[in-house]
């Protein structure tokens, strides 16, 4: 018996594009009679490309990456739902896969019946389910409704019940795909706690998520996937950082925004953004430094009082704070100007950030109008802090993203 729970070697998965056809159609019996040969370039899509890694027993490993990076496909291969096109994997231990909550739930059956149904589908024996029945019902909080058909449940109850059944699986290897994003915050915390228990009890956990906080909390090691291949395999913190950097790198400094997805619905924008750049061209700042942006604005029509407002996002997507310009600028039709926006005293913690910017007009009484808005632009870095006694290079995430001014302290009385 080896120490290795999951060993993946050069796993590849190719999908053929195009639909499953009819029996008498082009891909069925008539395949021989097709006139044009298929062009190989359009036909195949490699969802996984030479993926290899080893996971030891008891490790909790996260898998992160963009949508379409191959995370779910990898889980499907490891769960034996789909076959790899190449390579192989060796798994030691009983596997339970949670790729979706509520698989097999039927609206006509009662909560109790669905617990047995879903549990059985997930691989639990009837005796196991019966043993844990009370705990499952209690965890979900549906004691009063357990004998009502599930179609009567609220969506929250439905999801809590579904997750509760899955949470009581006792496999040796647990594979979870983004299913923690269900229910309200309280329930999510409960679920995270339960997952934490599972991993602390010595089980191997493979966890796919977009929620970086959850990943950081549950895992110590992370695999970053990019376009079907492993881009990084190492500590969770470093992997998340690499992921954030990849997001930030999407936007090209000072580039043309013509193709950039824009938030506002107005196709005939009266006022719109032209190019954006940092005044000093550098995108690396010291903590406490002022940020100055050069915003090029084009006005198609006249506008009376346009403000620049925006939000600074941490590279993971969490908004850190917002600003609204006090002054409102008038624009004449056809005018093009560059506005220099200065942000002082931000006190951002070390990390990667992006901007979301808007040109708006109006006020609270009469309503706002967004002329143009852009998200994920102007990525920048804030470097580590140099402390008074030396270098403080680390800024743990649970310290937040803003460094507040030093507090004043007053000793009230001795003794």
């Amino acid at each position, binding site marked *: 018996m080896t120490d290795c729970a999951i060993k993946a070697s050069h796993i590849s998965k190719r999908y053929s594009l195009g639909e499953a056809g009819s029996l008498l159609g082009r891909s069925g019996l008539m395949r021989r009679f097709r006139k044009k040969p298929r062009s190989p370039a359009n036909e195949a899509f490699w969802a996984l490309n030479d993926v290899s890694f080893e996971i030891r027993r008891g490790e909790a490993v996260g898998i992160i990456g963009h949508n379409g990076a191959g995370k779910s496909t990898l889980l499907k291969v490891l769960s034996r739902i789909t076959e790899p096109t190449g390579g192989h994997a060796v798994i*030691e*231990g009983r596997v339970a896969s949670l790729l979706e909550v509520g698989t097999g739930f039927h609206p006509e059956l009662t909560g109790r019946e669905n617990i047995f149904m879903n549990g059985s589908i*997930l691989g639990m024996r009837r005796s196991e389910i019966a043993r844990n029945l009370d705990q499952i019902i209690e965890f979900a909080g549906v004691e009063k409704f357990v004998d009502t058909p599930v179609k009567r449940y609220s969506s929250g109850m439905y999801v809590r019940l579904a997750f509760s059944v899955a949470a009581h699986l006792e496999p040796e290897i647990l594979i979870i795909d983004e299913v923690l994003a269900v229910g309200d915050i309280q329930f999510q915390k409960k679920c995270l706690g339960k997952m934490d228990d599972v991993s602390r009890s010595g089980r191997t956990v493979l966890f796919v998520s977009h929620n970086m906080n959850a990943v950081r909390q549950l895992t110590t090691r992370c695999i970053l996937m990019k376009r079907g291949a492993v881009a990084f395999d190492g500590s969770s913190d470093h992997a998340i950082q690499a992921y954030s950097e990849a997001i930030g790198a999407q936007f090209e400094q000072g580039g043309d925004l013509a193709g950039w997805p824009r938030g506002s619905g107005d196709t005939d924008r009266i006022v719109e953004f032209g190019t954006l750049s940092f005044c000093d061209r550098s995108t690396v700042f010291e903590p406490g430094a002022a940020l100055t942006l050069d915003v090029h604005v084009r006005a198609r029509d006249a506008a009376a009082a346009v403000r620049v407002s925006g939000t600074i996002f941490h590279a993971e997507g969490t908004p850190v704070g917002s600003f609204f310009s006090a002054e409102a600028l008038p624009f004449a039709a056809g005018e093009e100007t560059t506005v220099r926006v200065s942000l002082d005293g931000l006190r951002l913690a070390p990390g990667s950030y992006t901007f979301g910017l808007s040109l708006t007009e109006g006020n609270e009484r009469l309503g706002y109008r967004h002329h143009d808005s852009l998200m994920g632009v102007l990525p920048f870095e804030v470097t580590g802090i140099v402390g008074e006694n030396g270098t403080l290079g680390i800024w743990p995430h649970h310290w937040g993203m803003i460094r507040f001014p030093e507090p004043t302290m007053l000793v009230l009385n001795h003794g």
Partner: protein
Amino acid sequence: MSRSSFTVIRPRSGWVPLDLRELWAYRELAWTLAMREVLVRYKQSMLGVVWAVLQPTLTMVVFTLLFGALLGPKNLPTVEGVPYAISTYCALLPWQLFSQAVSRASTSVVNNQGLITKIYFPRLIIPLAPVLAALVDFAVAFIVLICLMVWYGIAPGPAIFTLPALVLFAVASALAVSLWLSAINAIHRDVQYVVPFLIQILMYVSPILYSAQSVLKGRPEWVQFLYGLNPMAGVAEGFRWALLNTRPPDFIVVASSVLGVLGLLAGGLYYFKRMERTFADVV
């Protein structure tokens, strides 16, 4: 906790052996899925249980009246010495098992897309579940048959002991056809529209509404053999023999039915196992 369970995941090609041990390990799931079908059907309709009886009974009544009117009450195509009504009902029982199972199983893989794309289990369970569920309806209709036999004063002979084998025969036929249809339908979706029609035609081709004797008397042996390749021929005639204590069915018909079932089942298992690895990708 079993530590020694190694699983190797690699691309498979061609012949995949049937893993009976794994199927046995998942027997609870097979039963659960079958129960789900039965429960859901009965919860949704008031008729529920009654429908299992109503269908064969109504069919029997209608055809008794129809053939009686067309052919005259003395010429009904029944087995010798047995009233047409009960001879027909006896055959309708396994027929209902077969047709219900096949209708539901042919779309079962596609309908269970949610399960197939999210959970691992031996895919053979999917067409198996509707077949098992049809057995429940069969059991209910069987009770009515017993009442009918009491009413007509017919007692079964020693052949009644072959009944379990015959039920197995019927289940095997249903499963064989279901394996083929469910696999083909998953990949070429137009098959499901042809199935109801095929089942209807099969009902007329099989000796359900008439006894095999009435069409095969005096015909050459190769005709009898061809006719018997249809598994339902052997099943229907066998049921009549086991329950109504009539003369045994023609050997040729039964033998070729058994051949037919074995061939279909083996072929169906092979085809299904070969195609099942693509289900999650195409369904």
